[in-house]
């Protein structure tokens, strides 16, 4: 076992950790915000929005995240220079860093998985409560914001831990397009030093610690929510 590379590359790994955490936090927060309307659309929307939301969820959940990232970065990225006028006026769009594509791909992925869960949660809110809210004369918007949405979110929270850990465990896929996350930093170390195993083992340990922290933090949050059993 050789660990002499660790002090040299430590700042490098810290930077990678920050990139990984950025991907995780951004995609979970924005993805969850997107998931609520997508989940709601599947339950109440018109036929068009319902089938669109359903198709989006099926696509996200039915294809590997790896190829979703490649489709966005290599596929969609390669289309931008073909659009006339874009090259002259929007050079920034063509030169867009890989991290933006990765953030988009991870956010859409989390939204797709979470929307499916939100759909189930919206459906499982007892009909009587919604009818009672309507009987009080609440507008559809008020029924949703005061009764339907809060009740659905409380049901989703316990499953959120597993979803966030699942998302954390997908983050190393970002290194397959040029992004220097934890995984990217680790593979750079392996290429520079020709050490095969130690950086990977260290990486596995970091991920285990992160998983542990997330489990604990969400467990604490869950206990803050008053529930009656």
């Amino acid at each position, binding site marked *: 076992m050789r660990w002499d590379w660790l002090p040299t590359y430590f700042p490098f790994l810290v930077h990678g950790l920050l990139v990984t955490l950025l991907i995780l936090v951004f995609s979970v927060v924005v993805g969850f915000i997107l998931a609520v309307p997508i989940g709601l659309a599947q339950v109440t929307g018109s036929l068009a929005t319902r089938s669109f939301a359903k198709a989006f969820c*099926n*696509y996200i*959940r*039915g*294809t*590997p*995240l*790896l*190829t*979703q990232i*490649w*489709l966005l970065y*290599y*596929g*969609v*990225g*390669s*289309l931008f220079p*073909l*659009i*006339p006028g874009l090259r002259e006026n929007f050079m920034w769009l063509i030169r867009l860093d890989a991290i933006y594509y990765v953030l988009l791909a991870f956010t859409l992925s989390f939204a797709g998985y979470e929307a499916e869960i939100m759909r189930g949660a919206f459906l499982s809110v007892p009909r009587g409560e919604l009818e009672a809210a309507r009987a009080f004369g609440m507008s559809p918007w008020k029924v949703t914001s005061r009764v339907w949405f809060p009740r659905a979110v409380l049901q989703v929270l316990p499953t959120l831990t597993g979803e966030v*850990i699942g998302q*954390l*465990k*997908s*983050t*190393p*896929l970002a290194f*397959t397009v040029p992004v220097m996350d934890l*995984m990217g930093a680790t593979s750079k170390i392996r290429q520079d030093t020709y050490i*095969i*195993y130690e950086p*990977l*083992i260290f*990486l*596995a340990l970091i*991920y*285990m610690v992160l*998983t*542990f922290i997330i489990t604990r933090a969400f467990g604490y949050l869950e206990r803050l929510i008053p529930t009656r059993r």
Partner: protein
Amino acid sequence: MIFAVAAPLSELLSFGDQGYGDEMFWGAVKSVEIAFFAYAFGLFLGLFGAVGKLSGGPILKMVLEGYTTIVRAVPELVLILLLYYAGTDGINGLLKLVGQNPIEVNGLVAAILVLGFVQGAYSTEVLRAAIQAVPLGQIEAAKAYGMSAFGQFRRIVLPAMLPNAIPGLANLWLNVTKDSALISVVGFTELALATRQAAGVSKQYFVLYLVAQAIYLSISLSSTFLFARLERFVRRGQPKLA
């Protein structure tokens, strides 16, 4: 402009020297092959893992607990890289010990074993939970009839736990078809890497990646359909819920 690129699609996907249809087709076959055998290997490990976790000795239980906890806490991609290199190195190390020349480990077999080992940890948990949900009275009744341990498992536990296990096992199958794409990272040419190579040569990134996504999606959707039928079959004779 975008559609001008997509126009010669039939040519792009033709079988033969000009098109990439054959490369992607065989890539898809390899993906399904990896997924299928890894899933089977994972189920095999999972069955032993579940039985060991429920009725093994304290040391076996501890080992299995470590296996499922570590494998499920570390990203699949990291595990695949670690096990792929460690596995091939380990085999060659053993061969060296017995005085044999190192061999080139078959990429397909290595991919199957590595993915299957990861799947095994998830299968263990799914099967353990499903077995635990079988009412104890049924197992006691089987014992009272004088059934052997194997007879109890085959006639009582297995049919009673399958309805609980099928949804979880269906999820695992969908996961392993998607995780097979991760094998591309160690340089094995399955669907994802075949697409990447074809796209790199033809520069038709967008179209070819879309086609690959369509193939993955059709695998997922047809699997979902088949598992729904399987679940209806194992739930036959059960009262309808609500």
